[in-house]
């Protein structure tokens, strides 16, 4: 199929901007341009906009783009389409780190929590890659199978200790993604996720080559080991930042790169902007819907994301299948 992802970039950016504006102006408190104008920069409306709406919108964009890109990087590194941070143990390991912090160092500042969570995420992902290396005969289904079971094992250990120390409810609170808690001062870590997306763009070509396999990459003069290490750091930092700030957003990292790859192929430098935009747009749209449906209450992103996201993707997948058939 001939499809140039660059052609769809402009419309995607336009849609994303529209969604972002909608996210800025929609919510329980009324924010309108006329009120903003009449009250001036210190008025209540401006305060709401700066303290709540803008941080929330930024957090949505950063986290959405970050998780989608992390999924893409993971899929390139492992050379398998069915992996993403929450199915190979990365997220579970980071949650385990959070649990240990809650047990032993609850007063740690948020940046410390994030670092510990990143280290655990790094260790968990590295463990997964190490396990894969021990299984030379990788069939396409064996890789996600090992990932799912590894994350099951790590998750079981976490649940075990959480159950023992009555932290199960807190664990649930961290692990369900929710953007309603985002305020100024509570989301800034997510900029790390944004920086990582940019960093991914700069190493995009190396990732593409690494996605062709170790021997091939080495043959082309790419230091495969270093690219894998770099990718690991990107995935771990993004996962930890998102987990610490808003919780797990499942399913995004798996589906978005897959849909983009179905229509636009596997050249990371070309697909990356689209993956990031689609991820951010999807999260934004789902969050806005979550704010509307049971207004003035809110649904957490997980619920809306599951319904809307999966309905959209089912449509996309089945439509593209019909075309292939």
């Amino acid at each position, binding site marked *: 199929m001939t499809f140039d992802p660059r052609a769809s970039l402009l419309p995607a950016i336009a849609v994303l901007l529209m969604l972002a504006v909608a996210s800025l102006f929609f919510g329980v408190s009324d924010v309108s341009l006329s009120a903003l104008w009449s009250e001036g920069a210190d008025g209540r409306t401006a305060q709401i906009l700066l303290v709540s709406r803008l941080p929330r919108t930024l957090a949505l964009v950063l986290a959405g783009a970050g998780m989608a890109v992390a999924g893409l990087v993971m899929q390139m590194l492992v050379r398998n*389409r*069915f992996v993403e941070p929450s199915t190979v143990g990365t997220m579970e390991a980071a949650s385990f780190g959070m649990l240990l912090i809650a047990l032993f160092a609850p007063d740690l500042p948020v940046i410390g929590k994030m670092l510990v969570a990143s280290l655990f995420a790094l260790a968990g992902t590295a463990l997964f890659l190490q*396990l894969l290396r*021990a*299984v*030379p*005969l990788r069939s*396409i*289904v*064996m890789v*996600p*199978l*090992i990932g*799912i*079971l*590894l994350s*099951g*094992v790590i*998750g*079981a*250990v976490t*649940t*075990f200790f959480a*159950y*023992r120390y009555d932290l199960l409810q807190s664990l649930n609170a961290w692990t369900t993604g929710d953007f309603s808690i985002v305020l100024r001062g509570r989301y800034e870590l997510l900029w790390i996720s944004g920086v990582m997306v940019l960093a991914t763009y700069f190493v995009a070509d190396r990732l593409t080559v690494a996605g062709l396999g170790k021997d091939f990459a080495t043959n082309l003069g790419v230091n495969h080991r270093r690219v894998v290490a770099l990718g690991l750091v990107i995935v771990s930092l993004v996962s930890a930042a998102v987990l610490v700030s808003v919780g797990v957003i*499942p*399913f995004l990292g*798996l*589906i978005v790169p*897959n849909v983009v790859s179905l229509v636009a192929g596997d050249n990371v430098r070309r697909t990356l902007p689209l993956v990031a935009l689609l991820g951010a747009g999807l999260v934004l749209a789902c969050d806005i819907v979550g704010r509307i449906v*049971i207004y003035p209450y809110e*649904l957490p992103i*997980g*619920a*809306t*994301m*599951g*319904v809307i*996201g*999966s*309905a959209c*993707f*089912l449509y996309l*997948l*089945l439509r593209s*299948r019909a075309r*292939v*058939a």
Partner: protein
Amino acid sequence: MSPEARRRRVTLAFALLLAATAVAVVAFMTLGARGNWSFVLPFRGVKLAGLVIVAVAIAISTVMFQTITNNRILTPAIMGFDALYALIQTVLVFTLGAIRVSAMDPRVIFAVETGLMLVFAGLLYRWLFSATVRSLHLLLLVGIVFGVFFRSISGFLQRIIDPSEFLILQDRMFASFNGIDQSLLLIATVIVLACGAAVWRMLPVLDVLALGRDHAIALGVDHQRAVSVTLVLVTLLVAVSTALVGPVAFFGLLVANLAYLLLPTARHAVLLPAAALVAMIFLIAGQTILERVFAFDTALSVVIEFIGGVVFILLVIRGAAR
């Protein structure tokens, strides 16, 4: 491996599984009984029966499902079967109201839910599997997305439902292995036995189906009909296990793949009982560990996921090293 050695290996593995199951059953029934046999034996017997029924239902449904889809990572749970069941339950409570639902005979509700599930799953998955393009990639993605979709709609309805009604619903959906619904146990046993008999008669057909659609048709199997019958059986078994103990996530995946790893054979006459035995060992031994070692201070799924995951990963690595 020569055919002889392979046959010996299969026999040996099967015998070991049988022995391990026996050990688990004996341990479950006798450990910590303190001589109070007239109470302990019937009490634990009912629990044991529940565990066995669930184990058989999950193992057989998963292996058959993997046979008709021709791959070893799709399970009814991953393709959203038990999420669909939970959704039907939620919708039932949501539309009829919890009071009316809990006033009804659980067997009637079970029958209604299973009937609805048969209709939906039948339509949905037959359409999905009979399509001409059978790309594993798409199928897996679509399955995961369907699962998320069903779970999210249930989650969504559960959020806007009345809190007291939600409590009743939660009670129904997260039934644990400790509180197996006894009024359903008998009907579940009957269904599992009936399905087992049907599967027994289908064994040669299943062996042929495992070769893939084209080969099966070339060998004279009515593929569409066989797949439909298998899907009906799978749906019934999933409904039984979900009604008894709630969704079990990756348990089916684990036991089916362990059975493939342990027994190098493609014959369902061996694979299905072996998978059922593996499932029984995990459930019964897990429940014993839960009761005796952790004094109920954790959940069975935690024990199973940990032990099962470690065992599976070790097996894969050992198999690769050889």
